[in-house]
């Protein structure tokens, strides 16, 4: 269609051709106008909710003064960033964010793959279905509810851990979970696994069941053990899913689940050295300490690094497996 309209442009158009073009254009416009109008509400929302904040990242280079307003507040160069790194808080938050994410990626994926393979191997259909349904329950809950559950376990005076589980192992001295930071990397990894394994194992399971069953049958005829089937058929079969999920998670390595790190440790200041992440740092600096400078500087770095990591991870995905890339 477009080629046809382009070709006659080379010579001068006659009057009738011109009016025909105009008519066509007007018809096209009238036809598409309702579609453009439909786009308006969503576009307005994206501008307010997404694009204005992107531009707003620049306040990291300003000294915000509410009496002057955001636009008139003076530019201060990099001083917010200098202030941000004047003590080690931000670096600890960054370290925690990255290390937790690495732990989550490793544990989460290994565990989800094991569960997915187990689901695929189970013989009883109903048992399989019930397992899948139940595993998603923790994923369905809000973090607030999860924080109640964790407190029921870890409450130092009447929690289930100190009163029932630890005595089983002969530990009678109650542990003050919310005062000692050394336990939290383990606790948060377990809570993360508990909340998310259902979700990720179902993603892997849908990949495992798409593997052609005849491979397994042929392997068994050749005398392959269960272990050999897993290593040589299942894992290669779900390799694209593994690569995609891991790389997408690496793309989000600068971000953390705010609720997990904010609510589950009960805002205990004693635990910040192992529970503070960039997201809780930014929140606390902005809304609890009213320190716009530091929070905006930390947020700026998170957004920029996040963007770089997402782009990088996607480039890798599209190199390894074009189908699974986001773009």
């Amino acid at each position, binding site marked *: 269609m477009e080629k046809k309209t382009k070709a006659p442009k080379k010579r001068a158009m006659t009057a009738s051709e011109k009016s025909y073009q105009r008519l066509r254009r007007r018809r096209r416009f009238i036809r598409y106008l309702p*579609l*453009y109008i439909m786009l308006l*509400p*969503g*576009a307005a*929302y*994206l501008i307010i*909710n*997404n*694009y*204005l904040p*992107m*531009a*707003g990242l620049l*306040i990291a280079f300003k000294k915000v003064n509410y009496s002057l307003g*955001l636009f008139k507040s003076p530019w201060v160069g990099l001083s917010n960033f200098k202030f941000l790194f004047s003590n080690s808080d931000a670096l600890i938050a960054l370290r925690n964010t990255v290390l937790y994410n690495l732990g989550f990626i490793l544990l989460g994926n290994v565990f989800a793959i*094991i*569960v997915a393979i*187990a*689901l*695929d*191997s*189970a013989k009883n259909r109903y*048992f399989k279905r019930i*397992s899948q*349904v139940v595993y998603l*329950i*923790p994923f*369905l*809950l*809000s*973090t*607030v509810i999860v924080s*109640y*559950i964790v407190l*029921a*376990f870890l409450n130092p*005076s009447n*929690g*289930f851990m100190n009163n*029932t589980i630890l005595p089983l192992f002969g530990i009678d001295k109650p542990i003050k979970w919310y005062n000692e930071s050394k336990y939290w990397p383990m606790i948060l990894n377990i809570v993360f696994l*508990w909340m998310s394994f*259902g979700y990720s194992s*179902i*993603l892997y399971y849908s990949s495992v069941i798409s593997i052609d069953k005849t491979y397994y049958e042929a392997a068994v005829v050749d005398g392959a053990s*269960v272990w050999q089937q897993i290593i040589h058929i299942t894992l290669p079969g779900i390799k694209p899913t593994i690569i995609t999920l891991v790389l997408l998670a690496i793309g989000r390595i600068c971000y953390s689940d*705010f*609720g997990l790190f904010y609510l589950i440790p009960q805002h205990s200041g004693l635990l910040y050295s192992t529970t503070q992440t960039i997201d809780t740092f*930014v929140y606390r600096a902005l*809304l609890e300490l009213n320190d*716009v400078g530091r*929070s905006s500087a930390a*947020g700026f770095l*998170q*957004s920029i690094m996040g*963007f770089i990591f*997402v782009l990088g991870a996607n480039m890798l995905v599209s190199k390894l497996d074009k*189908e*699974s890339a*986001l773009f």
Partner: protein
Amino acid sequence: MVSNNKTYNFFVNFLLATLIVACIIPFWLLFVGSVTSEDYLLQHGYTLFPKEFSFSAYQYLWGAKDSIGRAYLMSIVIASIGVVANIVLTVLFAYPLSHKDLPGRGAISFFLFFTMLFNGGLVPTYMVYTNIINVKDTLAGMIVPYLLMNAFFVIIMRTYFTSSIPGEVLEAARIDGANEVQSLLKIVLPMSKPIIATIALMTLITYWNNWTNGIYFLTTRTDLYGIQNYLNDVMNKASFLQSHMTGLINAKAVPNISVRMAIAVIAVLPLMIAYPFFQKYFVKGITLGSVKG
């Protein structure tokens, strides 16, 4: 997997069964905590089997039904408005994008997609919603920021429109003189019920579970709290009381342990009752993520 290895089969069933228990026990603990007497809880802690039954926690809740009921009602109002608005915005944005011949389609798609790659984060978003468009301490603060439209769902919906609705049907409608609005309402929407239901469910759960908008944007109007923020507030007051045993705030104002557990049980209950009915769509909703949009 083909296996007649008894040890392996045993291990598989054992693992799956253990995980079922691991998913359920925490709820059981909450529930037992809510029906155990406060004295027993304080002395012996949580147990798997209730030793001293007491429904005083639920009696207390019945007495406080006004505040809990209001939080519940707010959650329902917020989630209903949010889901409807979200679906309307999503459909209206996805439908034009499903027209392959729409001039500027590529640019508009990028405009949408870019929001998935890059975002301003909390500080500028907070500034926009408190200084430019003020939603602080309003119902809109619970509904509008972050949640009203999700680029990912728009892309899923657009893909559904292009792949599951035959172009011939739309072409025929146009020849018969239907305009775009008519095609959308009379043809596309009725044929897209499954995807709309799935996205609506995922959005509903997101709104129901959201508590961050409450702590970001509601500072004085705690009467607008939904059930999640209400729960969080109870928890904060209780831990404040625990760390400041100075009688600064009225101890009676904070529900005791079994009551807190009872509130949590009541907050989870409707979701758990409804879950078996919607779990099919829920699974569909989360596996949408693994299908490229």
